[in-house]
């Protein structure tokens, strides 16, 4: 199997690079300064496969802040970028139901 780093990347719209933060597993995005941020609003958006591949390479080189980076679709809505599929929506907003909770003390 070709390594994801060598696979020819194909994108059908704008994308971001996302991963999980090493220390706590939180969802993070790569920003324009090659730093990992928690808000999708602050992520750098790539619009071509070449740009996405270049960003992914940067992300993969950093093994210590974030783990398992990949290319995730975003959708442009009213000038803002929102998650581009259900999986990414769940990653930003959490499970799609109310979490179990103990009664108020």
């Amino acid at each position: 199997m070709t390594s994801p780093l060598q696979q020819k990347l194909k994108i059908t719209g704008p994308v971001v690079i996302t991963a999980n933060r090493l220390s706590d597993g939180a969802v993070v995005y790569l920003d324009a300064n090659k730093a990992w941020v928690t808000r999708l609003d602050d992520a750098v958006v790539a619009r071509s496969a070449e740009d996405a591949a270049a960003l992914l390479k940067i992300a993969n080189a950093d093994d210590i802040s974030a783990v398992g980076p990949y290319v995730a679709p975003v959708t442009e809505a009213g000038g803002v970028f929102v998650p581009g599929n259900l999986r990414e929506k769940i990653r930003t907003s959490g499970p799609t139901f109310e979490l179990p909770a103990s009664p108020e003390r």
Partner: protein
Amino acid sequence: MYIYDEVDKTLLAERLADFKDQVARRLSGELTEEEFKPLRLMNGVYLQLHAYMLRIAIPYGSLSSNQMRTLARIARAYDRDYGHFTTRQNIQFNWIKLEDLPEVMAELARAGMHGIQTSGNCIRNVTTDQWAGVAPDEIEDPRIFAEILRQYSTMHPEFSFLPRKFKIALTAAPHDRAAIRVHDIGLRIHRNGAGETGFEVVVGGGLGRTPFIGKTIKPFLPKRDLLSYIEAILRVYNQHGRRDNIYKARIKILVHELGAEKFAAEVEQEWLKIRDGVLALDREFIDDIASRFRYPEYESLENGVRLGNPDFERWFRNSTAIHKKPGYQIVTISLKPAGAPPGDATSYQMDVIADLADRYSFGEIRVGHEQNLVLPHVAQRDLPALWRELAAAGLATPNVGLVSDIIACPGLDYCSLANARSIPVAQELTRRFHNLDSAHAIGRLHVNISGCINACGHHHVGHIGVLGVEKNGSEFYQITLGGRADEHAELGTLIGPAVPYEQVADVIEDIVQAYVELRERPDELFIDTVKRIGVEPFKERVYAAH
């Protein structure tokens, strides 16, 4: 409950220190993710969509009240106040931080708990019947051998880097409540013609992308030979299991590709060279392990339960079962209330259950693979009081084994492997079928939901199986009928094209409705109706309507 001795405690403490060091070396960058991942997996640490998930082993499903309280504390201090009980008798916490793990593991270790080998390409939690030790139909307590296998398989130097994960299950009753025939190795304790007890050894069962029912390769294995025979199986698998393709790496593929007979012959050839070696289990060794199991000091009681309250009676008939000791009852605690994620318990509920276990069940709790809990030793006279307290904490929904007692994996809401959500599907189904009278009238019906082909919801062996797939970026679900996981294990049959998320609950209702109309008698079980008439009538009903 098994009580740890010095060897057990020492290994746990040493493992804790080892993992603490590995986490530190990962956080400092000394270990890359590639080097660290198998190590963290072998301590039960997954990375999910939003956070790390910690899977804590509950060996063969046995838990003490003290351990349950520890889980409650961890849920509160390090997670989001709840945990999820799994189809392999473990518990999962979904919001753990890597940097908190050393403290979490230390707290677990103080209660004799850990995440050792709950993931990774090694031997996983050895599971068994949640009624072990108390079921009237069992030959003997399978947990003794589950513990022997747990120890043998823990940090085994030869078998810690297998081609893929390895799951072993045991049963000691003619009715298989442990799904042994869909495990990599299934062991059935039974008596041979001469009245001796030993193991039927079943190999190569499994679900997932290529499901198989296991094949019996040894109809009767004396107890003495258990570990040497398992070692022979593992050695053949370690050396010959495929390592080129993770989807073809389980032992079921090897058994299938070689054929059961040839596989059995390879095992036999290896086994004959080691059967009389040090792995031979003598009586002394077995008795030593057995001696550390504590059993309740039962009172001599008469059978007799005062029924009167119709709600209590309904719960009693649904959620309790006959115990091997007169005057006692096995109580199942449903973790499937209407509208809730199946198998979850809040820290509050965990504390309640721990307390009830202390007062009514000799401090012992069990976890079942259907994601419910069990209080295994309740005196019948205590049932009304117990019921009231369970009900007050939302733990007495009398739907055990019914259509709303759904088994579901975490699915796309949590899991990075998933294609579709499973929990909201389960929630909607429990709402549709929340009426207890009609659920009771429908009868025993197992619905299993998996969010992807990895089948952690065991959909292949559900009476109704639901498999989430992705089609054009949307969630669709394939429906299978007629699966079962017991001693008549069978894989379900697909009824037709996948249906969209919005229609799943309607489709299940149609299937149930069809069954109610087509069954021969009210007490013909769903699974038997499917066997009798096949899936066509259900297929017609579903696809005509949609």
